[in-house]
C-alpha cells in the first residue's frame, strides 16, 4: 500500500498536522507548499501528459477532417492517426507518458532547438543543487538550520517512491535515493525508473488529469477536499464523453470494454465509419475538457496554501517556479526551528 504524501511528511517531521498547535498549523501550510513544489518539480511529466492530451484532441480533429476531404477517406492516414490516438490514450492511462514524451523531446541531445528539455531541466535544477549541497553538508555533520531544512525538501520528493519500510531515521539513504531520483528526472537520457513513472504519474493523474482513482494516495482530508470537486467535474466530463461515444459504433465499445476498464471507453473514438456529429462533439469536449480539467485541478491544488502562492496553469513558466521556490524557502526559513527541533 502506498503511503500518502502527507503521511510521509508527518512521519518525517514527527508531529501531527491536524493538531491544534500553531506549529502544526504552520506545518500544515508547509506541507501544502511542499506539495505544490512537488507538483512543480514533476512538471515535465505533467507537460508530457498535457501533450498527450493535446495529441488525442489533434488526432480526433484529423479523423473528423478526413471525412470531408475530397476523394474519400485515406485509409492509411486514418490508420496512423488512430494509432497515435490509441498510443497517447494508452500512455495516459498506464502512466507511460514520460517515456514516450522524453524520447521525442530529447531525440537530439546537443540540440539547442529542443526547446522543452532545457527549460524543464532548469526548472527542476533549482531544487536539486540545494539538495546536492545538503548531501555534502550532511556527512560533515554540520549545517545550518536552513541547509538542514532544505534537505527536508528532498525526502518529500522522494515520497513518490514506493512505500519506505522504515519511515524514521536514515535520512542519508533517502536523500541519496532522492538525489538519484531527481537526477533521473533531469536526465536527458530518459532512463526514468518504472517506479517513479508509476508513482509520479499515478499521483499526478487524479489531481491533474481526472483519470481513474486507483492507487491515489488520499489519506489527508485536505487532499480529499481538493480532490472532491475535481472528481465532480471529472464525472461530469466523463458522462458527456460517454454520451458522445454511445452514439458511436457500439461494436467498438464492446471490444474496448473487454480490454480496458469502463473509464477508458469514454476516451475511445472510431477508426472508421462514424457519424460526424458525435465526433465533432468529442472534438469539442476534448479540446475544452482537458484544459478545463487541468486548469481546475491546478487551481484547486494551489488554493489551500494560505500563503500567497502564485496560481499557474499547466504550462508554468520558469519564473513562476523560481518565485515559488523563493517563497517556499523563505517560508521554510521561518519554520526552521520547529523542524530542526525534530
Amino acid at each position, binding site marked *: 500500500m502506498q503511503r500518502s504524501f502527507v503521511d510521509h511528511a508527518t512521519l518525517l517531521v514527527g508531529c501531527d498536522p491536524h493538531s491544534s498547535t500553531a506549529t502544526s498549523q504552520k506545518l500544515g501550510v508547509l506541507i501544502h507548499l511542499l506539495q505544490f513544489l512537488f507538483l512543480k518539480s514533476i512538471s515535465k511529466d505533467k507537460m508530457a501528459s498535457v501533450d*498527450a492530451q493535446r495529441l488525442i484532441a489533434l488526432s480526433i480533429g484529423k479523423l473528423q477532417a478526413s471525412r470531408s476531404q475530397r476523394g474519400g477517406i485515406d485509409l*492509411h492516414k486514418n490508420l496512423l492517426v488512430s494509432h497515435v490516438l490509441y498510443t497517447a490514450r494508452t500512455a495516459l492511462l498506464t502512466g507511460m507518458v514520460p517515456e514516450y514524451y522524453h524520447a521525442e523531446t530529447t531525440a*537530439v541531445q546537443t540540440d539547442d*532547438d529542443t526547446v522543452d528539455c532545457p527549460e524543464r531541466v532548469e526548472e527542476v535544477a533549482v531544487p536539486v543543487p540545494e539538495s546536492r549541497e545538503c548531501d555534502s553538508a550532511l556527512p560533515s555533520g554540520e549545517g545550518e538550520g536552513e541547509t538542514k531544512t532544505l534537505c527536508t525538501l528532498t525526502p518529500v520528493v522522494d515520497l513518490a517512491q514506493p512505500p519506505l519500510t522504515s519511515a524514521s531515521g536514515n535520512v542519508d539513504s533517502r536523500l541519496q535515493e532522492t538525489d538519484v531520483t531527481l537526477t533521473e528526472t533531469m536526465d536527458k537520457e530518459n532512463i526514468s525508473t518504472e517506479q517513479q513513472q508509476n508513482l509520479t504519474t499515478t499521483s499526478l493523474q487524479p489531481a491533474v488529469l481526472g483519470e481513474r482513482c486507483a492507487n491515489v494516495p488520499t489519506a489527508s482530508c485536505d487532499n480529499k477536499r481538493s480532490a472532491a470537486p475535481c472528481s465532480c467535474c471529472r464525472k461530469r466530463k466523463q458522462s458527456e464523453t460517454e454520451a458522445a461515444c454511445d452514439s458511436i459504433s457500439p461494436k467498438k465499445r464492446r471490444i474496448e470494454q473487454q480490454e480496458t476498464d469502463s473509464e477508458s471507453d469514454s476516451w475511445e473514438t472510431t477508426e472508421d465509419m462514424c457519424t460526424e456529429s458525435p465526433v465533432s462533439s468529442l472534438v469539442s469536449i476534448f479540446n475544452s475538457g482537458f484544459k478545463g480539467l487541468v486548469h481546475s485541478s491546478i487551481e484547486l491544488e494551489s488554493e489551500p496554501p494560505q500563503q500567497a502562492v502564485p496560481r499557474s496553469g499547466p504550462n508554468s513558466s520558469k519564473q513562476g517556479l523560481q518565485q515559488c521556490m523563493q517563497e517556499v524557502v523563505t517560508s521554510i526559513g521561518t519554520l526552521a526551528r520547529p523542524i530542526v527541533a525534530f
Partner: protein
Amino acid sequence: MAGGGDIQWCFSQVKGTVEEDVTEGEAPPHHYLSVDPDGDSWEYENGTRETEHMLPGSEDVGSDCEDGDICNADIISTVEFNQDGELLATGDKGGRVVIFKREPPETKQSLPRRGEYNVYSTFQSHEPEFDYLKSLEIEEKINKIRWLPRQNAAYSLLSTNDKTVKLWKITERDKRPDGFNLKDDEGRIKNPNDITALRVPFFKPTELIVEASPRRVYANAHTYHINSISLNSDHETFLSGDDLRINLWHLEITDRSFNIVDIKPANMEELTEVITAAEFHPSMCNVFVYSSSKGTIRLCDMRQRALCDQHSKMFEEPEDPSNRSFFSEIISSISDVKFSHSGRYLISRDYLSVKVWDLQMDSRPIETYQVHEYLRSKLCSLYENDCIFDKFECAWNGTDSQIMTGSYNNFFRMFDRNTKRDLTLEASRENTKPKCILKPRRVCTGGKRKKDEISVDSLDFNKKILHTAWHPTENIIAVAATNNLYIFQDKDKV
C-alpha cells in the same frame, strides 16, 4: 561536392510557373514561363487544357484553373523516365500527363551536348469521377506512371489514379495523305462530273503531331486507393496495388484481374497495417515485393501459390526502443520501395531515412542513410501540420551506386553508397542560370549557425520534394518541386 569521382550537379531546365511555387491555398498565377539555358524564354497566357497537338520546342505546361481556385491541379504527383531515358513523363493532380522528349543536339559541337527535354505531348489522362454508390468523389490525380518497353514506333505508358489504370499509346504523325480523287483538299466530296483526271494519292510531309489515345482501361478492380503499379519483366502482365489488395492484370485483358495479395481482415476493426507500395522484381517475373505501413517489406513468389498472403521473405528491422515515441509507427511507415537495376538490392524510404536491403538478408538493412534526422525532435509539430504523413519517393541511379530522395525546403538528398558521402541540394529558382553549379546545402541542427547554413526552424515545410527520378543510364535527374519540374545534369557532360 568537388573531388575525384564526385558528381557536380548543375542546373539544366525548369518547367512550370514562374511565380513562387504554388502551394495549396494560393491563388493561381496566370503566366507561365520556361527558362532555357540559352536564355530564350517564352511566355504564355493561362491557357485552356491542351489537346494532343503540341509542337516540339514549345514549353506550355498550361493548366485550367478556375478563378479563385487554387492551382492544385498543377502540382506534380509523379515523375518517370522511360527505359532509354529519352522520354520523361510527369503526372499532376489535375489528371494530366505531360511528356517531355529529349531533342538531339543540333550539332555535335553545340551545347548542351546532351540536348534538352522539351514538351512532346500533353493529354488529360483521368477525369474526376463520382462513385454514386458510396457518394464519394474519385480524384483525378495521377498517382503513378510506368512506361512500357518500346515495341514499335509508338510509346506506351500506364497511368493510374485512385481507382482506374489506363494504358496510353503515344504516336507521332508527320505525314498525311493527299491527292485524293474523290475528295478535294478540304475533304469535301467532289462532284463526280467534275472529275476529269486520275491521280495516285501520296503522303505529304506535314508538321509533327503527337497523339495520345487510351488503348485499355482497367477499371473496377479496387475498392481502396491505388498507390502503385508495376510492370512485370515479362512485359505482358502488371500489378496494381491499393491499401489492402494487390491485383495482377494482363495488359490485353481489361475485364478481369487476379488478386494476389489480400491483407484485409475479416473485421475491419482489427486492421493494423496497409500496403503502401508494391513492385515487381526487374528480372525475376515471379517475384514481387510490397511494403506496409508498419515498416515491413514482404517478398512474395507467385509460383508458391495463387494468393500470396504468406510472404517468402520479410524484411524488417527491429525497432530501437530508445527511440520509441507516439509517432514511432508513423515514421516507420514505408512510403516507397524500389528494386535496384541489378535486382540484388532494394531501397525503402520511411519518413526519416532510406534503407538499403540485400534480398538475401532479411534480418536488417545493409545500409541506412538518414535523410533529415534533425526532424526527429519536431515530430509533434510535423504531426500537427500533417507533414509527417508525406510520402517521399526514392530512386536509384543507373549503376546502383547512388540513391536519391527528397526532403523539405525543396532540398533533395543524394547518397553515394561507395564513398558513403551524402549531398544536399536545393531546387530553387535562384539557381536557374544556365549551367549554374548547384551548391551543397547544409542544415544546422544546433549550436551556432555557420554561414550558408540554414537552421531547422527556417525550413519551409510547404516546399517538399516528394517525387524524383534518375535517368536510367546517365547522370540526369528530374526533381518535382510542387508544380515545377527541375532537370539537373552533371557538369562534365554539359
